[in-house]
């Protein structure tokens, strides 16, 4: 009897799934209708359920999200917000990609601008925000230039969550202990590397198993050799990536590598493993984004108060000066084009973006993208140093892998690893990047 019941249920389940399968065969995201959206957004007194997809399952950031959600629900008694947290790497590579392909991501969701969201925007799965921004005068609260990478075809799709800037984090204790000067030029950097190596100290943290981690350094060197303006144009496909300056940036990376700047077996080390040694106070230098600041100031690590953040050392004859930085605003919050309640979703999205911007600033995770009002003493001291560095910033270039699209990203990682392994020459690197970029652009125009 029991078995029969179960069986019936199973069959029903199978049928539903099979039917659903038939109904949506070959269905891309184009099938969705806009009608239900219009119907329901008019009423305001009804119960509104929104989902918010974010990437902070860990306690510290997760609590920030929860506290805002609570506050928002108190202010809007008819609104219920379900916050769904997924670990960032899984979210970026798996969860969001699968869901956004069919437009079934959360009403409000964390996303990345630049190349990452381009497909979703083109497929019509992301809500265009211009009208809503106009209506709410949102732009007045934003810092200048923070919308750039959430804008596609002159229309805004993403609200910036934060900004980052790259810096060379130096452990002053170790520099003093071994009597080494904190480098300002590339030559001094090389000297520092050699000095630490001579003392059998790994000079710089790098986990080259993760292509992006090598990219951080090479991309920053390219800002020095080729200048921020040119790099931005080149990464957009307006100029070639196969230039002497970019070859030079790869050469410099190789020089560092040959001088023994990076940990032994770095190609087999992940970014996290490598950076941990810096946080433990075993490695004197780490080039990274401003998010490294939160680790520098964390009680869990051994380097509180020992860190000096300096700009990437300058390169003789390079076109980019000390005031050009890697960085920008690439982390965004976007709205699902299928949301039933665009107005409420927008209100929530703006609220939480501002709030997160402030809180992340305090804990040293990132620089704000909004005009925030934060008590200076609450801000992470290392982040404060970076903020001072960028006061006179004259240009920012995003990490290449957030700028580029699809196949070019993978090619970028492959070529960077090749440089580190000695199987790719700097010339091949620059030529390879240009070719990959052309291929992607060709695919777009077809």
């Amino acid at each position, binding site marked *: 009897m029991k078995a029969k019941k179960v*069986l019936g249920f*199973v*069959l029903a389940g*199978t049928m539903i*799934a*099979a039917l659903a*399968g038939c109904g949506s*065969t*070959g269905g*891309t*995201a*184009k099938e969705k209708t806009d009608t239900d959206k219009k119907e329901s957004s008019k009423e305001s007194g009804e119960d509104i359920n929104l989902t918010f997809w974010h990437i902070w399952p860990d306690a510290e950031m997760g609590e920030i999200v929860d506290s805002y959600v609570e506050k928002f629900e108190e202010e809007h008694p008819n609104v219920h917000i379900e916050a769904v947290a997924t670990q960032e790497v899984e979210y970026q*590579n*798996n969860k969001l*990609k699968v869901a*956004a*392909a069919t437009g079934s991501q959360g009403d409000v969701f964390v996303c990345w601008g630049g190349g990452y969201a381009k*497909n*979703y925007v*083109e*497929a019509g*799965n992301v809500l265009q925000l211009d009208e809503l921004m106009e209506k709410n005068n949102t732009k007045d609260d934003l810092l200048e230039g923070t919308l750039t990478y959430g804008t596609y075809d002159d229309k805004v799709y993403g609200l910036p969550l934060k900004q980052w800037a790259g810096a060379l984090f130096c452990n002053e204790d170790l520099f003093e202990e071994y009597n080494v000067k904190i480098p300002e030029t590339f030559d001094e950097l090389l000297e520092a590397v050699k000095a630490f190596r001579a003392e059998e100290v790994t000079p710089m943290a790098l986990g*080259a*198993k*993760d292509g992006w981690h090598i990219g951080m350094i090479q991309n920053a060197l390219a800002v020095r050799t080729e200048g921020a303006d040119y790099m931005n144009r080149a990464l957009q496909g307006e100029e070639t990536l196969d230039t002497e300056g970019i070859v030079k940036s790869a050469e410099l990376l190789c020089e560092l590598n040959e001088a023994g700047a990076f*940990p*032994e*077996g*770095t*190609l*087999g*080390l*992940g970014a996290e*493993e490598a950076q941990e040694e810096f946080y433990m106070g075993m490695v004197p230098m780490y080039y990274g984004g401003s998010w490294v600041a939160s680790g520098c100031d964390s009680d869990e690590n051994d380097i509180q108060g020992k860190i000096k953040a300096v700009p990437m050392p300058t390169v003789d004859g390079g076109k980019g000066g000390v005031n050009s930085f890697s960085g920008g605003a690439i982390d965004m919050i976007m709205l699902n084009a299928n949301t039933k309640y665009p107005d409420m979703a927008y209100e929530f999205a703006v609220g939480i973006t501002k709030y997160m911007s402030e809180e992340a600033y305090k804990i040293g995770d990132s620089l704000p993208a909004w005009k925030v009002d934060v008590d200076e003493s609450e801000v992470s001291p290392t982040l404060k140093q970076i903020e001072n560095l960028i006061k006179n910033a004259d240009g920012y270039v995003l990490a290449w892998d957030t700028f580029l*699209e*699809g*196949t070019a*990203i*993978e090619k970028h990682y*492959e070529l960077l*690893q*090749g440089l*580190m*392994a000695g*199987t*790719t020459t700097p010339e091949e690197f620059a030529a390879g990047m240009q070719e990959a970029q052309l291929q992607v652009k060709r*695919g777009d125009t*077809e």
Partner: protein
Amino acid sequence: MERALRDKKAICIFVLPALIWFCAIALFPVFQSAGYSLLDWDGVTKAKFIGAANYIKMFQDPLFFKSIWNSILLAAASVFIQLPVSMILALVLAGGVRGENFYRNAFFVPVIISGTIIAHLWLKIYHPSYGLLNMGLGAVGLDALQREWLGDQGTALLACFVPMVWQYIGYHMLLFYSAAKSISPEIIEAAQVDGASRFQTAVRVIIPMIVPMIKACVIFAIIGSLKSFDLIYILTNGGPVHASEVPSLLMYKKIFVTNEYGYASAIAIFIILECLVFTFIVQKIFNHIQKD
């Protein structure tokens, strides 16, 4: 009885639930994927029909061939190293040892632990500066053998194989063991009364009787190798510079990193066909053996 075994209604009741469930959920999407493999599609925006272009691209891609070759090497290692070890352990245990149950359970432990933790464990073992392996080699004076195991293009693939082969030894052992145990004791006793040693009994009586299970294990081992993903994903992510690339990982990257959904689907279809071909070959070989 003959009539009962031909009862159409009974056959449907027994087969259809499993068949429908399986076809709707697992098999049907394969045909969808086959369809996608003919498209130039990023998984999101509008797809374009391009016929066999993805397959042509695939067969011109040296990286693809490298990944296939790597997976075949892994399959060979599984069949010729992992399975014999499992078989020996299974026969020793099934032959009766003190603490048989304890050993059987202990050997199976790595299978129980999720691939993620196994991979992290081996990351630590291989760590170039404070990994167990290099430390051990140093301790016994074999400094010359110390390597950057996962960071060296020459050793990365081998370094990935070792934990993969190791983890599933207990899995195959359990299967062999349960098959050997289901042979009725009389048969084994009869052989021993005839004066066969334990070794001879194992080779002449037990192994021939568990050939169906051996066949199943060979198929598992080969297919598992051709589809391998988890451990390599964490250990090297296919690197350095694709030295340890395998087809599933390549496909994963095509879907989730480079957004080449059509191309990835072509690789998926190829993996399925490849597995089918290998299974077919194994079946043929074993049919031959079983007839003899």
